[in-house]
């Protein structure tokens, strides 16, 4: 084997090549060839990623950094093109390429006979490229390249059905909301460059005298500012309060896109960023608290909305927002590895949920409204079993993947020095709601009687027309990825048992306590060693609690949607305004429109453009011109061309001169 196979740059480069080939020539290729190119590109990328991972883990070194030349050099400030591979980026890389590859396979079948097949796959490969740049970059500016790039790919893919206005609008909204977040990211970058003169992880975090040299900031300092600004960026990308509004709309895109970008990978970039910047956040407790609070609030509010939605993809979208909130909560209590662990398991089961939902939508002719589903279990058993697996996993029922990671988060929220019982309590309530709305989705979709119009052709809600017959199971090319993801959702959590996952990330997560004085560390460590037994029992009790609430959610969903299916409507009616409020997503979109967007457009049109520009500036200039014309009009009268008039003026002038001289002479 040649050495070049081990080059980490191949991981992002292969999808880029796939994008270029399909983008430039794909129009002339058959669908099979287009799919083959895209699949080979991502598949090989995944293989190289696996090789890289093996090499790094076996080498025993904490990280590998590769430079491929300088990108920007202005004065002393330089930015490299480079790859930074440590245990954190390794996990991200494997998740992105692995899940990405599975979703590519699925999409090859799902997008069959859609217009613009080659366009779709070149965008999808473009996304893979930018996402891998984001996670593999060795500095923040290059991360920002990936950061903006995934936003672009997401814009293009959401707007893939660009004939639909709603899709084009959703794509634009996603991009612009993300740009609002980028405001924070950019200023954080400026601040970083000004303070440390570098944006490279290696020098920022491992050079003594930069971030390492700074003490824990108990009040706002430079690190707190950087952390808070980064959080603004992270909120944009990871759809946290107050910038979450774009994600539910992004579901206008094709379902594989929702699975890949808006569930498994891109939206987790914010969590990755916080984890990557842990040396900064761990020194800035205020920023950390902000992360935890935003995460906790988001997870709670999104879950309440998720309980009321009727569109299968919207339920999953709010569920994603809510689960991302969990990851933020974990990062916010300085349990970064728990956040990344949940990021990974979530990538498995949420990708699976979306793909299974896509299979459902595909199987019943493009319908997304759960009220028109039901009883699909017998029509599409594979879809049902895999989706049920994912539902159990996300609900946090042991021993599936979601249980391990969610339990880890809740435990950390309780026990971490940055944690709080409040975070834990809200987390547990959210866990209950999660379990409830997920089983609600499962029961409404697969149980009971089929409520759709079986024989009527649908005019494709997901632009998926032409499947107007009785519900049918999807082809194997779609089911294969579902089965693999189901297996991952079952077994993927075991890597985290006994804090193994946490220890895997140890080289990445800096222990900031080490910077306190030695005495303090001893004092902090002492009680810990004294009561491991008590701690163990607390951990078990908390674990039991989270299992119980998950089962309670399942039970309630079963009672409301299987046992007494007429009840939900009555409850909704009884709740009245509250239900309407939640169902309409707290009218946040409408609020933003009324408070921000409409006034901005109105002011731009009526004040800035039509008043300031056209009336005030142009008006005064034009007035000046008119005045000049009028004045010259008066003066022009002198030049009448009449000899007598000129003679008169000469006489008057002469008289004036004579009078003046006489007056001068008499003085």
């Amino acid at each position: 084997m040649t050495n070049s196979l081990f080059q980490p740059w191949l991981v992002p480069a292969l999808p880029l090549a796939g994008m270029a080939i399909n983008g430039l020539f794909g129009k002339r290729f058959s669908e099979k060839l287009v799919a083959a190119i895209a699949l080979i590109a991502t598949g090989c990328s995944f293989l190289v990623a696996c090789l890289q991972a093996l090499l790094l883990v076996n080498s025993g070194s904490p990280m590998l950094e590769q430079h491929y030349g300088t990108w920007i050099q202005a004065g002393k400030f330089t930015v490299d093109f480079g790859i930074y591979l440590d245990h954190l980026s390794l996990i991200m890389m494997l998740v992105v390429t692995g899940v990405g590859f599975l979703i590519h396979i699925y999409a090859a079948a799902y997008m069959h006979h859609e217009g613009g097949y080659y366009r779709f796959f070149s965008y999808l490969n473009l996304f893979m490229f930018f996402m891998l740049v984001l996670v593999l970059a060795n500095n923040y500016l290059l991360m920002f390249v990936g950061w903006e790039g995934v936003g672009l790919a997401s814009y293009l893919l959401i707007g893939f059905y660009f004939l639909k206005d709603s899709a084009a609008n959703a794509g634009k909204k996603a991009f612009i909301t993300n740009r609002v977040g980028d405001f924070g990211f950019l200023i954080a970058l400026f601040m970083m460059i000004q303070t440390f003169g570098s944006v490279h992880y290696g020098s920022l975090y491992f050079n003594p005298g930069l971030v390492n040299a700074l003490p824990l900031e108990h009040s706002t300092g430079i690190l707190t500012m950087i952390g808070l600004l980064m959080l603004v960026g992270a909120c944009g990308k990871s759809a946290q309060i107050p910038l979450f509004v774009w994600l539910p709309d992004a579901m206008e895109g094709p379902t594989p896109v929702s699975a890949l970008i808006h569930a498994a990978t891109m939206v987790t970039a914010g969590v990755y960023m916080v984890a990557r910047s842990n040396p900064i956040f761990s020194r800035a407790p205020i920023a950390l608290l902000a992360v935890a609070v935003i995460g906790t609030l988001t997870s709670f509010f999104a879950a309440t909305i998720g309980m009321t939605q009727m569109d299968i993809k919207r339920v999953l979208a709010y569920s994603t927002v809510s689960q991302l909130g969990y990851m933020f909560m974990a990062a916010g209590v300085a349990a970064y590895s728990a956040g990344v662990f949940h990021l990974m398991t979530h990538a498995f089961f949420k990708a699976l949920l979306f793909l299974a939902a896509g299979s459902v939508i595909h199987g019943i002719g493009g319908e997304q409204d759960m009220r028109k589903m039901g009883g699909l279990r017998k029509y599409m058993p594979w879809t049902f079993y895999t989706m049920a697996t994912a539902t159990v996993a996300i609900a946090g029922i042991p021993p599936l993947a979601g249980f391990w990671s969610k339990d880890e988060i809740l435990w950390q929220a309780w026990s971490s020095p940055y944690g709080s019982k409040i975070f834990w309590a809200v987390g547990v309530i959210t866990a209950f709601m999660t379990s409830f709305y997920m089983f609600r989705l499962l029961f409404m979709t697969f149980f009971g009687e089929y409520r759709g119009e079986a024989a009527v052709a649908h005019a494709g809600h997901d632009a998926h027309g032409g499947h107007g017959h009785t519900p049918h199971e999807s082809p194997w090319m779609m089911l294969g990825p579902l089965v693999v993801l189901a297996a991952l959702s079952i077994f993927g959590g075991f890597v985290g048992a006994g804090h193994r996952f946490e220890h895997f990330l140890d080289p990445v997560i800096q222990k900031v306590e080490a910077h306190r004085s030695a005495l303090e560390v001893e004092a902090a460590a002492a009680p810990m060693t004294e009561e491991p037994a008590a701690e163990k029992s607390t951990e078990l009790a908390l674990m039991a609690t989270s299992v119980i609430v998950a089962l309670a959610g399942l039970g309630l969903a079963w009672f409301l949607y299987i046992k007494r299916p007429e009840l939900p409507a009555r409850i909704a009616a009884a709740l009245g305004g509250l239900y309407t409020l939640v169902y309409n997503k707290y009218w946040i979109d409408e609020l933003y429109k009324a408070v921000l967007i409409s006034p901005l457009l109105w002011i731009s049109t009526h004040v800035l453009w039509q008043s300031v520009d056209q009336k005030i500036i142009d008006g005064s200039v034009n007035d000046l011109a008119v005045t000049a014309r009028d004045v010259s009009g008066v003066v022009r009268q002198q030049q009448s061309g009449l000899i007598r008039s000129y003679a008169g003026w000469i006489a008057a002038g002469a008289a004036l001169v004579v009078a003046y001289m006489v007056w001068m002479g008499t003085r």
Partner: protein
Amino acid sequence: MYNHILSIILFTPLVGAFVLLCIPGSNKTAIRWTANFFGFLGFAVSLPLVSWFWAVKSLPGFKFMEGAPNSWIPTIGAGYYLGIDGISFLLIMLTTFLGAISILSSWSAIDNRVKEYYAWFLVLQTGMLGVFMSLDFFLFFVFWEAMLVPMYLLIGIWGGPRRVYASIKFFLYTLFGSVFMLLAIIFLYFFHHAQTGVFTFSILELYKTAPLLPAVYGPTAAVLLFLAFFVGFAIKVPMFPFHTWLPDAHVEAPTAGSVILAGVLLKMGTYGLIRFSLPLFPAVVHYPRLRLAMVTLSIIGILYGALVSLVQKDMKKLVAYSSVSHLGFCTLGIFTLNTLGLQGSVLQQINHGISTGALFLIVGILYERRHTREIAEYGGIGTVMPVYATIALIMFLSSMGLPLLNGFVGEFAILQATFLARPVWAAWAVPGVILAAAYLLWLYQRVFFGKVENPKNAALPDLTPRELATLLPLVALAFWIGLYPRPFFAILDQPSKEIVEMVEHPKTYNAAQPLKAAQVAQSAVESTPEAVR
């Protein structure tokens, strides 16, 4: 050739204009070929300069100097005196490059009075090149004014329905500015004589006496002189609130006129600020109030231009207002008064030439097919003209500053430099980046996405090879600067440092009149009354 390269570049287009005059006006094909030949030749003769300049880029001072001070009209001290540094070098390359592309883009758009059109266009090229090369104020002013006339005619004869209004507005605005500038130049000329006993318009000489102004005549006079220059340049840039001629001029100008207007002409304002306002008035630009005013106008320009762009209904007007926003970044970079800011500013001027030039070509291509620029008339163009839509997307992204494309590098450098100067300024300017995404993506969506609802759009032909040839070089440049901006920063390194040095520590005369010059030692800032500081 090496020693006269600047003259060759400068006069090639003018020679072309004369050659065109010798061709009978009825033979349009011959005229078009000849004009394109000279357009391309103008670019080709500037290419050797690239490698030659690269070799000497780090040498101090101006390079490739030609002629001498006072060599042209010795009695008044005017000279044919040329020379360039990295800043003028890049702007010259941009001019010859965009000139060739604009001439190529006019092939089918211009059909009446073809000969005059191309002749004036080539004259315009010489005028603009002269501005970037002159090291003599008299010569500079001649070129500065000379290029007004062809532009006026290009808009006034080959423009849209309101071309007369637009061209006169353009002419009067710029003339208004230049009058003040002329007065200030003459003042500096006499001031130089008073200090040294020599009459000269040589810019290099005036650099040495002008900084003495505040010490001799007091800060108020210096500020007034600065403002006299500033008005001339600010109108050209255009900075808020002097910008209202721009949308009218752009909307009425023919496509190639807009490309050159946005791509090169506006840069003469920013070039003037860098080349003259900073080194001639080093003390004045440091006055906190004045500097704050400049920065504030820049930031207003950024946000104002972007917000007004957002609500335009005419594509060309939208791009025109976006220029106000983009040029705001350029002037902001200048008034950071640090090296990075200047480098970013010049790079962003080049970027704006590439991106906005391309956007005007893109609008023009659609206009030639449909003869309307109303955004509402379009929709669904992406399905009808896929190649066009793809290139348009790339240039839209470049204009909104997406990383790996050119706009990002310039904007980032400027904003970083602004942050170094004063973090709050950067915080005010960054929303311009958000708004850029908003107005450009919204425009893109309305024109390219959706179904084709207007039957007139149903059968529009995609790009012709000639149109592709005008756009692809711009796309390539956008990627080049985005991926590998190092050569550009390297070229701009020396001149930016030198200008910052001139602003921080002006080197003035003290030979001729040591008494007066000695006052410089107590630099202007100290003698500034509180009111101005």
